[in-house]
């Protein structure tokens, strides 16, 4: 199971691309706000096409679109990391406990997971979001609450198979109690799957957040890529709208694509059968 991550990345062009893009995103999100203008700053210089000083022009309130794009990327990344982490954590807790404890607890938990799997998450989130008009934080929690079930099911299956692996059985024959086995053996052994689960959850979260904002179910006073695009749609009769729509769209596509590539790479590392595919 020991694979040099470095060599794997070197061989995989897509993964290299993905990692570079994610790094760029992270850099922009961290340092961008120092370099760009205040995205909330109103001016009378509104609905401008790109000029010097406003690389992507200005919006209907005279705010700098480029600055808003940078802040939007920051928001997207925040959603990705937080929702990805939160939903993976919920999935891990429920998945490992179900698999490890088994019995009635497992049965009840899996029926709950099934229930969550059949409820169309998007519609549910849309309903709740339409009512709450959530900010970023509420949205993160909302997304996480409806996005852990798939991961939980995979983690449970993996826990079931790990539980009967010889090295874990061995630790029980030293007198190890369940919490020890879970914390010292099962969760570390799940590592790769948790990373994949995190990446896919993060990807879904970005997409969901952007989608909800784009159709207007979000607190429109916040800044995110989806909201910038949502605003563009209101001015489709003016030439400026294309500058509001396309750059966030490209940024969104790039980050989603990158995360997919990285996810695939890690999946390949976990499952040797995929390596030559």
């Amino acid at each position, binding site marked *: *199971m*020991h694979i040099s991550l470095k060599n794997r990345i070197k061989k995989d062009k897509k993964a290299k691309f993905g990692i570079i893009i994610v790094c760029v995103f992270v850099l922009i999100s961290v340092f961008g706000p120092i370099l760009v203008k205040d995205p909330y700053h109103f001016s009378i210089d509104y609905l401008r096409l790109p000029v010097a000083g406003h690389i992507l022009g200005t919006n209907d309130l005279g705010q700098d679109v480029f600055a808003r794009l940078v802040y939007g990327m920051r928001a997207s990344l925040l959603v990705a990391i937080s929702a990805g982490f939160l939903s993976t954590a919920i999935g891990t807790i429920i998945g490992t406990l179900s698999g490890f404890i088994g019995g009635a607890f497992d049965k009840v938990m899996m029926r709950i997971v099934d229930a969550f799997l059949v409820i169309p998450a998007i519609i549910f989130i849309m309903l709740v979001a339409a009512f709450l008009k959530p900010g970023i934080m509420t949205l993160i929690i909302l997304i996480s609450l409806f996005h852990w079930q798939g991961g939980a099911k995979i983690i449970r299956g993996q826990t079931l198979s790990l539980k009967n692996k010889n090295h874990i059985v061995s630790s029980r024959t*030293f007198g190890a109690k369940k919490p020890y086995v879970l914390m010292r053996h099962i969760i570390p052994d799940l590592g790769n799957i948790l990373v994949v689960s995190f990446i896919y959850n993060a990807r879904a979260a970005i997409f969901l957040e952007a989608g909800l904002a784009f159709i207007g179910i979000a607190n429109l006073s916040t800044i995110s890529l989806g909201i910038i695009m949502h605003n563009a749609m209101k001015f489709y009769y003016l030439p400026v709208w294309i500058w509001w729509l396309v750059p966030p769209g490209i940024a969104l596509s790039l980050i989603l694509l990158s995360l997919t590539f990285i996810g695939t790479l890690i999946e390949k590392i976990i499952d040797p059968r995929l390596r030559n595919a």
Partner: protein
Amino acid sequence: MLKVENLVTRYGEKRILNKMSFKLDKGETISVIGESGTGKSTLGFAVLGMIGEVSENSKVEGKIEIDGFDINKLDKEDLRKLRWKKVSIVMQNIDDALNPTITVYKQIEEVLDKQENRNKKIIDILKKIDFPLNRKDAYPHQLSMGERQKILIAMAFISNPEVVVLDEPTSSLDTETKNKIIAIIKKLSENKAVILLTHDISMAKKLSNRTLVLYGGTTVEYAETKKLFKNPRHPYSRGLIRSYPDSSRTKDLQGIRGRAEFVKTGCPFYKRCTQAIDICSIKKPKLLKRNGSFIACHRGGIIPLIKMEKISKNFGKLQILNSINLTLFEGETVTILGKSGAGKTTLAKILMGLVEKDSGNIYLENKEVKRFDAEYYKKVQMVFQDTRSSLSHRMKILDIVMEPLVVQDIGTRQQRTGKAKKVLSEVQLPSSRSFLNEYPHHLSGGEIQRIVIARALMLEPKLLIADEPTSALDASVQAKILKLLNNIQENRGLAILFITHDLDLAKKVSDRIVKLENGIIS
């Protein structure tokens, strides 16, 4: 005829024999066995009343009665008269025992003193011992070892004594000569009381009807010879028998750990005993009668370590184990032999608490096992069949080996590391820093096997269950691992439940083999 009661002998401060007692009737032979230095020869000298002549500051207490005479109360002159006529000895050292300047005929004649019919008696005995008559005038140096030994035997038996002491009568002889001598002794010793002092177990087996095991001048076990050799009950007796080559036993030879040491208090054997408990170092055990033989052991002899009683297991309608009864004693290897699917591993897993039994009881050191808890796992450990997979690929060697201590929360990290290093060297692995930081997938199959054994030994278990521990290894590595297990058993008194389908292997490693077939043990 011969009665020894509470015999104590001392050379200076050192007590050689410690309260020995036994009785011997006409026609009986008793073997006294034990390692060198346990006081066998001293017993021989004491019976002849020669202790005073061996060492000046020696002391003898207790009673040695031959035909009504108490040897210890006779004066020198009476003793001299008694010797050869009532009691005689065949000395251990053949070279020095005969006078090199006179012929062997004359030497035998000396024993008879001035009796009549000397010539006839001598010729008679020479015929009995199968000595060529034309060589009766030879000097000792002209004779072979076997012939000299025969002369010594003739001297001991010629005056028809009632008690004969044989001190290593056949050491340094080849097997053929030895067998001849044994036959001669057997013929001559009818109607006599014979004490055979030896460390040669095969001779003790052939010649004696009772055997006394001597350790540190103390009788540790005293029983009928057949019974004792078939089923020794004292750990020392077993160790002694195990270390003696015997063609009927296929298991490798094992010694007894440590070396003979003089012990002031407690059981003389406790320092070398693998099942010693606190009391063994404080109080000397009494020689007590148990099941027809005498044993001096606080634990009543070798203890039954684990006992399975009527263990049954079904998987659905399939019966795997049907009322299995099996007892494992401390320090022995029992092999469970059976085909694949016979239920060998299931039985092992039941013992490890990994599979639940349908019915039956398990007893560990005579206490019923109700829960498989940390305390239980301290005493019972297992080496799994697929050893490589029983190591976590994420962990380094040191962490793997230390894990049992971490789980049981024993010691500080430093102590754990120290212990891990010690155990690793016990299984002949390096304990260098670079090795400890390796990952298991960098190691060979043989090394992995040793790691797994080391890990199982970390808790100092009393029972090791080894499920096909060498099935994945080549023959030479397998040999090394088996030897290793054998040595560990010798040093720690570890009982091993060995599981295999290989009969030859089973014969080589085990004291007992049980066959598991159709869920039944035979």
